[in-house]
């Protein structure tokens, strides 16, 4: 049975895996700890579930710790999360006191692991306070911010900045997402895992079965958007685009697949709006899927003729990379990380309006050769830039730079 690294080598290339091994070699035996706020659910946990075993296989003694907290703790860290992304939130003093209290509890629980670690990755704001609570730490600490901190709500950033400015380095996904801090701020885009359930190859039988279950006709053209029911994803605008394009594309179908609405009052409201906009239209399916419906999402993306991500505002939007990896051209909103994945006219089209989306839908479905060529380029684009092996290589590069106290250049013997 192939090791995990060998499996990634089969996809990314053996030279890529060899490079990882050479980069990791000087750090073999170092203790690396990742800390985040959940072991299941969400993009960070998904990435760590792959990264941690890969680092282990490369000879780094890697572990993954999760902060524990009270409802008040997670209430305030949710406010941090929203505030960092620019939402105007109020931080009640009682909740901030709870954040400090729970942080000290977690620091006590994790003290020996974190103080003895050579490298600690703290993911997102929830565990950010651990650094200040462990002054006897000996390793290098990195704050990895996965969300867009480019335009934070100032009161939130005033609270968080003192917590993160003591780290040895921080990592943001994009230059636009970064804040000015005294330490080096590395820029490392996120990635997808080609071996994850949502990205592995599927047989046509399974794709057919998923389509049949959701009453989709594989003999007719299909548009798919996968995203939470969120106004910034512009699902209603996508329905408008679909209706503008449909008269020119007989039999056109649209799937809006999302999830999590039951736990999210705003999501439920948006889903209602989407259902209302789609009401009575037999060619539109609004699917509310459970968070673990990865295989269904995978099948829907593979069944699509064109995948859309018609967001008006977006973080990184990794669903775009997931679709490109499946050789699908993507029509994406001209915003955030979508711009980096949809290379306009190469791997899909960037659009600014429902009209623009409708025009590109019509064009692609009338020019199947271009549709196919864009899909192939999209897969190669992801192969080169958005696989987890690239992200791991960049993490290893940062780690080496820190443990060897390098500045611009480090030459290993």
């Amino acid at each position, binding site marked *: 049975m192939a090791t995990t690294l060998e499996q990634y080598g089969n996809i990314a290339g053996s030279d890529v895996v060899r490079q990882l091994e050479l980069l990791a070699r000087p750090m073999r035996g170092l203790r690396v700890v990742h800390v985040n706020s959940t072991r299941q659910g969400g993009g960070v946990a998904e990435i760590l579930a792959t990264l941690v075993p890969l680092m282990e296989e490369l000879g780094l003694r890697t572990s993954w710790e999760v902060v524990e907290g009270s409802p008040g703790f997670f209430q305030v860290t949710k406010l941090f999360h929203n505030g960092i992304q620019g939402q105007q939130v109020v931080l009640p003093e009682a909740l901030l006191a709870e954040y400090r209290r729970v942080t000290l509890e977690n620091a006590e629980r994790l003290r020996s692991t974190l103080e003895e670690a050579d490298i600690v990755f703290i993911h997102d704001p929830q565990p950010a306070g651990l650094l200040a609570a462990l002054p006897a730490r000996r390793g290098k600490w990195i704050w990895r911010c996965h969300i867009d901190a480019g335009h934070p709500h100032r009161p939130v950033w005033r609270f968080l900045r003192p917590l993160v400015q003591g780290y040895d380095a921080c990592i943001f996904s994009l*230059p636009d997402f970064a804040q000015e801090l005294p330490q080096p701020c590395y820029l490392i885009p996120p990635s997808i895992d080609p071996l994850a359930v949502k990205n592995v190859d599927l047989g046509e039988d399974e794709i057919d079965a998923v389509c049949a279950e959701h009453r989709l006709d594989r003999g007719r053209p299909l548009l798919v958007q996968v995203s939470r029911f969120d106004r910034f994803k512009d699902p209603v605008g996508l329905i408008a685009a679909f209706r503008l394009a449909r008269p020119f594309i007989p039999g056109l179908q649209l799937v809006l697949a999302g999830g999590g609405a039951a736990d999210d009052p705003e999501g439920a409201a948006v889903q209602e709006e989407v259902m209302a906009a789609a009401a009575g239209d037999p060619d539109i399916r609004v699917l509310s899927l459970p968070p673990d419906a990865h295989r269904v999402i995978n099948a829907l993306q593979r069944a699509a003729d064109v995948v859309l991500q018609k967001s008006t505002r977006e973080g990184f939007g990794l669903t775009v990379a997931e679709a490109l990896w499946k050789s699908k051209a993507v029509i994406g909103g001209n915003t955030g990380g979508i*711009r980096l994945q949809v290379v306009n006219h190469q791997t899909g089209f960037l659009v600014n309006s429902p009209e623009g989306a409708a025009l590109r839908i019509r064009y692609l479905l009338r020019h199947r050769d271009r549709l196919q060529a864009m899909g192939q380029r999209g897969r190669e684009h992801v192969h080169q*830039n958005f696989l987890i092996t690239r992200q791991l290589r960049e993490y290893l590069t940062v780690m080496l730079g820190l443990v060897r106290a390098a500045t611009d*250049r480090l030459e*290993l013997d």
Partner: protein
Amino acid sequence: MAGLAIKDCALVSIATGRRASSLPELRDGIRAVPQESLYFHFWGRLLRPRFDDPEYHSDFASWAQHCLHDELLAERLAVIDPADFTDLERLREEVVDVIDNHLQEAVPVYTRPDRQFHFRRCQTVVFDTGQVITRPEVLPQAISALSLGSIYYHVIDARRREPVRKDDFRAWAEGLGARYQGLADRLGGIDPYFSNLAELREQLSVAAARFFAEEG
């Protein structure tokens, strides 16, 4: 005959915190940033995730086209080939001159906040692969099997290294004597600026293969 030890490198980008929203701000930034940042925006794109339309090969030209929508400036910046400059300060002067001249005939425009130019620099880690090329005859196959990081190190990075300042394959072939001067000339004749690293690897491998095929 001394072998050519193959190295590899990895690069990660770092925000400098400096941004530009207009052409005058870009010019001022180019004047102020460290040489490493300038180097990164011309050459670093070869070794980091490539997001932009590869029509223009410097970040400055891409930004002029995509964010300022100034095609004329994009063309003027794109034609600056960093391989022509052995000194990064001369390259910096050239870019600033082009922008200054352009500003005399163009009205500066401001980009949207989400379209700013972000000056970055890079951190590079170089490491030994343990591989040594011992005979020039194996170059075609050996080059085609190298990682893109190795291609970057031996072709792009090598041009900055004193005292030779030329790509390692060419320098190695020259050191092997007159018999391999033709090989050195072929390898040195490849312009790396307008290729991506995979294309460059292919061009180098083909050039070496042709030399040996013609040499018989």
